[in-house]
């Protein structure tokens, strides 16, 4: 299997704090990580590769420092990685980002052959849109399965376990395809010392807009149909009626009386 995994380097949003005075995000000192769901996507890809043979290529778009994310992926089993980096790509919304990725996929396929599967995380934990995967599939004209928690290859087709309201569906999907991944039942593997050393030594090539066929008017802010008008930190409530009676029975009785009076229960 010729596999591509798209990853994004993101700030660890679980570590983000709000400045209580200015009510803005404190971004300083927040570690950059490989987007959690992309890590699960890589683990599924690695299991598919380990079982069926093949190669895993990592593709990421971002600044030079995003090479660190690629190296983290190499350390846990990816075979090679490519960084897409150009000022023209900055400020891209999901449509423009997926366009850039789709052009890069076509370029890489010219050298490496068609990717049987392109894996993405279901969403990035900073933007939380979940749109780049399906939009990449649409740009490439390939079938997609989103919200996958496992993938197997049966008779050359993908069998994808997809989250549903009641459990999961098994979806059959021909290749080439795009699959986006949720949290898996298994934990992503840890890097080995050998893997880390090899990743550190690896040369990561960078592709700029000049290196492949791409219409830069469809990239970046200009190529993005959605515009961010403003951002703000959400307002806090702060009007709680706090009940702390001498014992639990009294607290429970007091709350139920209030809820009954307010016709809530």
């Amino acid at each position, binding site marked *: 299997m010729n596999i591509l995994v798209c990853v994004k380097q993101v700030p660890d*949003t*679980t570590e*983000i704090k*709000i400045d209580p005075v200015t009510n803005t995000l404190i971004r300083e000192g927040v570690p950059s990580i490989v987007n959690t769901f992309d890590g699960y996507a890589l683990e599924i890809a690695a299991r598919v590769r380990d079982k069926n043979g093949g190669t895993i290529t990592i593709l990421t778009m971002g600044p030079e420092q995003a090479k660190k994310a690629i190296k983290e992926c190499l350390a846990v089993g990816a075979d090679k990685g490519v960084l897409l980096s150009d000022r023209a790509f900055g400020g891209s919304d999901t*449509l423009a980002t*997926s366009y850039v990725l789709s052009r890069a996929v076509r370029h890489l396929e010219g050298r490496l052959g068609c990717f049987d599967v392109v894996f993405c995380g279901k969403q990035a*934990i*900073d*933007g*939380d*849109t*979940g*749109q780049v995967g*399906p*939009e990449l*599939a*649409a*740009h490439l004209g390939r*079938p*997609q399965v*989103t*919200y996958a928690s496992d993938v197997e290859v049966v008779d050359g087709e993908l069998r994808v376990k997809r*989250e*549903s*309201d*009641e*459990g*999961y*569906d*098994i979806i059959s*999907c021909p290749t080439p395809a795009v699959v986006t991944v949720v*949290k898996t039942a298994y934990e992503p593997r840890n890097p080995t010392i050998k893997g880390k050393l090899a990743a550190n030594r690896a040369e990561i090539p960078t592709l700029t807009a000049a290196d492949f066929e791409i219409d830069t008017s469809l990239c970046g802010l200009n190529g*993005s*149909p*959605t*515009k*961010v*008008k*403003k*951002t703000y*930190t*959400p307002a*806090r409530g*702060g*009007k*709680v*009626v*706090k*009940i*702390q009676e001498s*014992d*639990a029975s009294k*607290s*429970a*009785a007091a709350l*139920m009386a*209030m*809820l009954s009076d307010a016709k*809530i*229960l």
Partner: protein
Amino acid sequence: MSFEGYRDLWVFIETHRGQAKSVGYELLTPGRALADRAGYKLVAVIIGKNIGAAAARAIEHGADTAIVVDGDIYDVYNTDAVSLALLALIDKYKPDTVLFGATNNGRDAGPRVACALKTGLTADCTGLDIDAETGNILWTRPAFGGNLMAQIQCPDTRPQMGTVRPGVFKKTAPDAARSGNVISEDVSVDPAQIRTRVVDSIREVAEAVNLDEAEIIVSGGRGVGGPEGFAAIRLLADTLGGVVGASRAAVDAGWIPHAHQVGQTGKTVGPKVYIACGISGAIQHLAGMSGSDTIIAVNRDPDAPIFEFAHYGIVGDLFEVIPRLAEEYRKMKA
């Protein structure tokens, strides 16, 4: 910028075996308000099988018109079938705005359609407004795990599209006296264009965890302490006629299946009453339940962030408080 020929506001109503997802009807509420301000018709677009009843209900919940596409291939969700049907309808009618519920399937079809049209789609919105001058929808959505809110618009392309979280808006009471057009559209999709197929559906949870439609949710978090601790949560949920929810901490610890998870990476809910037990109130959890009408927190720590969002809070040990809440409720209803 003028958008010649684009008009009306559409709400895509997702169906599964003829049953509409609640969020579709919910979106008719803000859809009605926005359509009235823009001078547009509110159109419910329903794709499925045996969906006549769903179309009638959409009218009762505020739609002027329902466009229905009925066929065997739409019985259960399929990315290609639904996307191609929507694209055919959008090409024919040229809607100005399209709203999708931000369910897994809405977030699967929405980007597929938006990309084909090379237009903007705003994900997972929790607030909708309109700039009356330009007709641009102002889409409000959380990002950075709920730490930041962003207001987005799509000024240069139509249709403008967004997915909207379930539970944020409330269905209006159905009005059986309302009348509206039901337009049946026959969209023929070439079977060769349907590439994926559901080969099996597995129900993993013992009982259906219907967090989307629940009026009362009792949720447990890290403070519940273990799988057996959820017995207390379940007791209160059963007593109140509610459903059991959970924080990511409890799900990640393996105490309860993922289907119960509420939050940024779980379900978004908007029940009448949400009772958070032993949940500290991480922003990612709050992002999934802040649309609840009444939030009640039970936590030992008087400084837990959940108390900043709750309407009512009891400071105390949940294992003492929860059974007594159930007891008091039974007494009250006796």
